[in-house]
């Protein structure tokens, strides 16, 4: 199979969630389904997602992110020092509520759908963020594969909730150093495992840059 060298086609990340997948996710969140059982459902979804991309003729294939609660909140499963918090739980602690709501709008997310990966302690990788995703994807396709990871700006901006995070870090920049270290370790692991393409997602970069321009605080 010769790979094309121009106009290479790929996908940016997540695939539509089926009703089965959404039901399993809700049960997993409520604690009535184990992570292992949830993953079995997700793996079936990933198999179908990969098959559809191959059928469409895509050059670089993704797994559709079915294992992930959201494209960034999933790291609470993988990173120590984090806690998944609903918007309602967070609002008690967020100092600038208007700015928080603005970030949600920027990310094009309805508030009801948002669970935030809040930093509540020193951050370290409990397990790789996406290495298992890569290994599983490799068993399903011979095509080049792409792994997506949340970017450092997005994570810093969302994970810092002053009232809770200051127990571990003095300021967002200090926390960001650990986030960058974690992402760098993951990137190296993925590279060493032969991943063809790693994409960092930065949907709030505009907001970060413009906040600095306007002299507002860069982070929440």
């Amino acid at each position, binding site marked *: 199979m010769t790979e094309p060298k121009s106009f290479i086609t790929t996908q940016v990340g997540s695939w539509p969630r089926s009703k089965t997948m959404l039901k399993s996710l809700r049960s997993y969140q409520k604690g009535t389904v184990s992570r292992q059982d949830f993953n079995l459902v997700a793996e079936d979804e990933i198999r179908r997602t990969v098959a559809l991309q191959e059928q*469409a003729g895509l*050059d670089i294939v993704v797994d559709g992110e079915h294992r992930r609660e959201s494209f960034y909140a999933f790291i609470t499963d993988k990173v120590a020092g984090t806690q998944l918090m609903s918007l309602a739980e967070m609002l008690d602690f967020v100092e600038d509520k208007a700015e928080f709501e603005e970030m949600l709008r920027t990310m*094009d997310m309805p508030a009801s759908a948002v669970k935030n990966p809040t930093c509540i302690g020193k951050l370290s990788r409990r397990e790789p963020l996406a290495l298992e995703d890569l290994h599983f994807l490799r068993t399903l396709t011979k095509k080049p594969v792409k792994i997506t990871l949340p970017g450092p700006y997005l994570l810093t901006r969302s994970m810092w909730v002053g009232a809770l995070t200051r127990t571990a870090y003095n300021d967002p920049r200090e926390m960001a150093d650990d986030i960058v270290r974690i992402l760098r370790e993951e990137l190296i692991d993925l590279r060493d495992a032969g991943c063809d393409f790693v994409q960092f997602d930065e949907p709030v970069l505009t907001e970060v840059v413009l906040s600095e321009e306007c002299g507002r605080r860069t982070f929440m």
Partner: protein
Amino acid sequence: MLTGDYARLLPALERMQVDQFVLEYATPRAGDIEVVGRALSDRELGLGVVNPRTDTVEPVAAIVAKAEQALAFYRPDQLFLNTDCGFGCFASRSVNVEEIAFRKLCAIVEAARILRARYG
């Protein structure tokens, strides 16, 4: 919702050590390709050519035309074709149904086939 082209992001993007920028261009919000094309064509561009938030499939000819605009700044081997955002951005509701997502991917692949025939 922030609108406008990527001009104000350029100072940040120019400093990033990455091989490729994957950018949304299937929404009018993204502005003209020229803004990024003039400043960042030393890197690859992942050109967003279909919008995962809509349920109409983009015409293949429109995808080809968008890619041809980018060819004013990028070589064919620097130009990737992709969706804008993902299709299922977050957990509680899916942005798009699978059948439409699949047809959008097919449109991207067909556009790439035409572009390769024209430009190698």
